[in-house]
């Protein structure tokens, strides 16, 4: 290889080499594409967060005195759409997946580097449509339930079109990852040695391929309904509004796992390193990702227990919902057991991973409430659901994601952030998150419905606490972002292996050279060979 020797020295940290703005826009380097996803999704996370803060500010008082009800409705629609479709679904899988999958399996890039760039551009096209949608925002909620989404006077087509386009990006990325994992593993990287993050990414990619086309067609039907006047969801024309919910949740429930399974992978990578212990129950964790992925296609009706479905259907889906809790519980036990007799170091990635275990446990347990039919009737569409969902999505996915950014930061950027500041940011984020969302469980049990711009005065105390919490949370996020950005400009170079991991990506320089590995490595043991045999 002509330039294979250029990276033997770490003298010049040429950022994955080729220089100039265009070399980024047209890059096929999975690491750079990962960075571009990271930057884009971070942007949408912050914008979505601002919507959330404004809503929480409005909810300080029972009356609609800061935002009008219509504006409030628009804000929660935008918050949900941005966070779900533009941040969590594409982001965590695509940014981390892109950066890590080839490095972890000992490959030079993904299977289709050009297509990978294409996926990113499709994602950007989706976001471009989104900007249009922000100017003419919809007020339907991120679930776009018919018939309101057909009757609403706001522009529902633009935002759903944006989501539709994003779906393509998601499908192409998923396909790329599956082929990569199948075809490009380095010698010795057998299926039973694969890092669990790879297993998780594989399960996620399958979900992306199976579920995304269905939401694509659902949104297409909605768009056709609005623009062409077809009556699929309109009872006046013989259609069925519940059909939309069936279609939508058939995608969107598996999508929950598209969002959270990568985080399972992250936690499985972080805990062994900081406990210096092999992962406990490797096979159980790997298989349970697939069990969850498969079962997740057969639980969608649990979003519709009070929609008017039959008793039998409700019973079947309640039962299946309980089943999906089992592999999830097994994972939590496995991660906890991994720490037994370990040598535990509480650095910032580990703090995020441990928070994940606390918060995801709460998110999972409160899911059991909602799976139990009679209880769900009471709690459905209340703040209990809001809190549950955020405990899973933030407590699970976002904590895992932030942990991953801290864990692989040195590898990704070749620099280090300030560890003390990172811990302070984590503290604010953790405390703020719980103060924001824990009271919402109680509010929900007492009957506070979600998506309310105004509310009865008896709920005000809970709302006040929640709003104050959102400020603490925001402080944490700001400190974290500032710290991570400041780290890029630090003088000191990061070592090759910051935390003593045995995974392949920590055998290459930080940042890795453009082609990752000078010579394709050969693996002789699994990634989790910590401790004394």
């Amino acid at each position, binding site marked *: 290889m002509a330039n294979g020797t250029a990276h033997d020295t770490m003298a010049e940290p040429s950022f994955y080499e080729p220089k100039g703005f265009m070399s980024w826009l047209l890059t096929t380097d999975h690491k750079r594409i990962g960075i571009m996803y990271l930057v884009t999704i971070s942007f949408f996370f912050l914008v979505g967060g601002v919507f959330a803060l404004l809503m929480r500010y409005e909810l300080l008082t029972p009356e609609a005195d800061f935002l009008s009800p219509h504006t409030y409705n628009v804000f929660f629609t935008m918050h949900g759409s941005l966070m779900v479709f533009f941040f969590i679904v594409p982001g965590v899988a695509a940014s981390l997946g892109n950066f890590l999958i080839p490095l972890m399996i000992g490959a030079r890039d993904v299977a289709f580097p050009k297509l990978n760039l294409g996926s990113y551009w499709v994602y950007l096209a989706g976001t471009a449509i989104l900007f249009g949608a922000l100017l003419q925002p919809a007020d339907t909620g991120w679930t776009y339930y018919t018939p309101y989404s057909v009757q609403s006077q706001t522009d529902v087509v633009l935002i759903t079109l944006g989501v539709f386009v994003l779906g393509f990006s998601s499908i192409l990325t998923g396909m790329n990852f599956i082929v990569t994992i199948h075809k490009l593993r380095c010698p010795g990287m057998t299926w039973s040695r694969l890092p669990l993050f790879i297993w998780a990414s594989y399960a996620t990619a399958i979900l992306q391929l199976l579920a995304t086309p269905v939401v694509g067609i659902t949104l297409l039907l909605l768009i056709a309904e609005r623009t062409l006047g077809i009556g699929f969801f309109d009872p006046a024309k013989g259609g069925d509004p519940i059909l939309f919910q069936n279609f939508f949740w058939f995608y969107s429930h598996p999508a929950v796992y598209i969002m959270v399974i990568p985080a399972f992978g992250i936690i499985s990578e972080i805990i062994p390193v900081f406990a210096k212990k092999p992962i406990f129950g490797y096979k159980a964790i790997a298989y349970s990702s697939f069990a969850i992925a498969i079962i997740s296609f057969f639980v969608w009706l649990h979003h519709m227990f009070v929609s008017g479905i039959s008793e039998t259907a409700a019973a079947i889906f309640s039962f299946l919902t309980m089943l999906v809790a*089992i592999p999830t519980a097994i994972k939590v036990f496995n991660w906890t057991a991994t720490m037994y007799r370990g040598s535990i170091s509480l650095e910032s990635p580990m703090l995020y991973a441990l928070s994940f275990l606390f918060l995801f446990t709460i998110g999972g347990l409160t899911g059991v409430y909602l799976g139990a039919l009679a209880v769900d009737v009471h709690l459905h569409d*209340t703040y209990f659901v809001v809190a549950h969902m955020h405990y899973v999505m933030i407590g699970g996915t976002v904590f895992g994601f932030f942990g991953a950014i801290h864990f692989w930061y040195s590898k990704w950027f070749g620099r280090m952030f300030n560890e003390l500041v990172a811990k302070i940011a984590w503290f604010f984020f953790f405390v703020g998150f719980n103060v924001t969302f824990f009271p919402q469980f109680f509010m929900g049990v007492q*009957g506070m419905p979600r998506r309310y711009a105004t509310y009865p005065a008896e709920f005000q105390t809970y709302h006040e606490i929640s709003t104050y919490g959102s400020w603490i949370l925001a402080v944490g996020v700001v400190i974290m972002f500032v710290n991570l950005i400041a780290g890029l400009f630090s003088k000191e170079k990061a070592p090759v292996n910051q935390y003593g991991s045995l995974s392949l990506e920590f055998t290459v320089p930080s940042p890795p050279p453009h082609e990752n590995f000078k010579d394709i490595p050969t693996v002789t043991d699994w990634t989790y060979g910590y401790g004394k045999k």
Partner: protein
Amino acid sequence: MLSWLPENASNLASGVDNVLLFVTVLSVFFFLLISAFLIGFAIKYRRKTEHDETPYITGNELIEVIWTVIPSVLLIFIFAWGYIEYREMRTPPDNAVEVNVVARQWLWQFDYYNGKKTINELYVQQGRPVRMVMRSEDVLHSFFVPDFRVKQDILPGNYTQLWFTPTKAGTFELFCAEYCGTSHSQMLAKVHVLGPEAYAIWEKGIGIDEGTSVASTLPPAEQGAELYTNRGCNACHSIDGTALIGPTFKGLFGITEKMTNGKTITVDENYLRESILQPQALIVEGYQPVMPAFEGILSDEEVTALIEYIKTLK
């Protein structure tokens, strides 16, 4: 009774609460268990030196089987219990009194067996099972009374139902729980549970009649008449002088009204327009600020048509 639960005011509430309580006890137990292990491990096995020796433990089949089986059994038990209580909620007794519920953006209409109609006020008798037969005139809504632990979505073009027996006299809040547009959070109603005597009196009392109007098309005033029913104005504004929740439209145009802020205003086109689009801006004395804003709902043309219609009601 737990104080963090809403009031227990129907026959179904205890069943729901028992399952909820059971799940809570289990959840707290498992959460504390996991937390104890996490925190305990983090303290006990804290890294002392960079060269700590750790054992090579990759799994333990026995313990993995145990922690798979125990949660499975518990979860299936929770499922079964939840289903039993759910069946109860879904099986109305034969002797239940029927109330027809019409939900529309953004109000509730209740039609009783004796021809009475009420808007945003539901009257039921303590101790007597009642069945709601519900339909929507526009989008999805959901009938939710936390104190009764009942909830059911309401669909257009389809009837859904729920039932309960109120066990406590008093007034309870009814929410619309399924997002239904701009004034979703104002689509509230009160459930009045009356004792047998009070209910008998209410039953014989004078109900609230609905204004009715059938409309044709085109000329503004006639279009306005159509909108008057389609948009649900008739729920709160009569055209025959009857006082409902809002002022009657009869003879409204041109009169001078005293506002809650002390000002007096002559009802002209601009005041009507503002009152339709931003009803909370100026409220006539003696009325509550409950009307949903029609800004973004009605076009200028439609507002004009309504105003023209109101002008015709002398």
